[in-house]
């Protein structure tokens, strides 16, 4: 980072080269290299899983599953996308697979026992506003929350999010609208106001 906290092109390129070397080593079977990749990316993966599931224990399971799946799939990873982007997709699939298993196991009451842990992680921010927002996101219905996380937080397009979640694009848009309305009500933010 430079004095303004902005990553220079050189730093970005060096970081990409370092990551490429770690990926190469991990593809060759180095668990030490894979552990470094884990340390570099676990925050983003766990953050995604926690926000999508709103449950710490489930998010930990999904994070572990995502990295295990990434290890299995690494031999065929061809660096067409950044490792982090690829890992992000794996994590989303892990969350969705976990949700399917949970629904099969518990039926319609799948979310009934989640409320006890529906709190953001204490380390997710010390600012009161941020914590309120995290809490409000966690309290959203699962469908609306997942769309909000993928589109509103991760920056996916509606088309991408709909494809990932197996939804129609229109459903994705309406879920986001619903999520934003609910958040605005809970946080007393006038929705859509600049």
């Amino acid at each position, binding site marked *: 980072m430079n004095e303004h906290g902005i990553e220079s092109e050189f730093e970005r390129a060096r970081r990409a080269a370092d990551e490429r070397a770690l990926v190469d080593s991990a593809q060759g079977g180095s668990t030490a290299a894979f552990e470094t990749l884990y340390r570099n990316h676990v925050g983003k993966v766990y953050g995604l899983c926690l926000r999508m599931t709103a449950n710490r224990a489930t998010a930990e399971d999904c994070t572990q599953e995502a990295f295990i799946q*990434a290890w299995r799939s690494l031999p065929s990873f061809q660096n067409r996308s950044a490792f982090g982007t690829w890992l992000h997709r794996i994590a989303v699939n892990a969350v969705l697979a976990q949700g399917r298993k949970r629904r099969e196991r518990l039926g319609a009451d799948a979310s009934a026992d989640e409320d006890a842990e529906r709190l953001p992680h204490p380390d997710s921010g010390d600012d009161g506003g941020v914590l309120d927002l995290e809490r409000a996101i966690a309290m959203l219905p699962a469908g609306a929350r997942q769309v909000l996380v993928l589109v509103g937080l991760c920056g996916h397009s509606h088309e991408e999010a709909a494809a990932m979640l197996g939804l129609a694009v229109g459903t994705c848009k309406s879920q986001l609208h619903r999520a934003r309305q609910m958040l605005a009500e809970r946080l007393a933010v006038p929705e859509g106001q600049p």
Partner: protein
Amino acid sequence: MNQGPADRPDRLQEALSQLPRGIEPGRDLWPGIAARLEPRSEPARVRAVPRWAWAAAAATVLVVASSIVTATLMRREAAMTARTAPTAQSAPEVVQAVAGSATAAFGPGHRVGPAYLANRRVLARELEVRLARLPPEGREQLAKNIAELRRASAEINAALELHPGDPLLEELLFNIYQDEISVLANVDRLTAADTKTAPTRIPL
């Protein structure tokens, strides 16, 4: 360019964009992950493919369509062959296409099973002999069919790289490999005068 109200970033979106992307887990998850990492030297095993009902239906359509087209083509070509003298010309391009796809993977981290590869090798060896009985047009059509299957499997393998573990893609890939075996088996069956057995589904 003027921004309409819908384009203006609102306070909620601003608040969302200020959330940190990463959240560190409350405990170290690495030991649990490390304990479940299979050594890379061991060949990855093919996982059981989930049997989604609609995917299975799509697979059935694929296999049936492929078999009908191939069977029709081969019968017509067999009839043409009966009218013309057998040619000693082989079809290296077709055999090469089959042999070249022997390294096919079953998506990221998975390989096709040994039974599938063994059957494919046998069929590829037989193919060279059988193809000599087909006219050039038949060989060309067969090469196109096999190339199409290989193109589809390459595309799905690429998609699996972007969506690792996607059960639908795995299912489609599974069926394409089975289709390839069906095509090869049909050539074998229809060009062999003394063989009447139908192609069977081979475990990948």
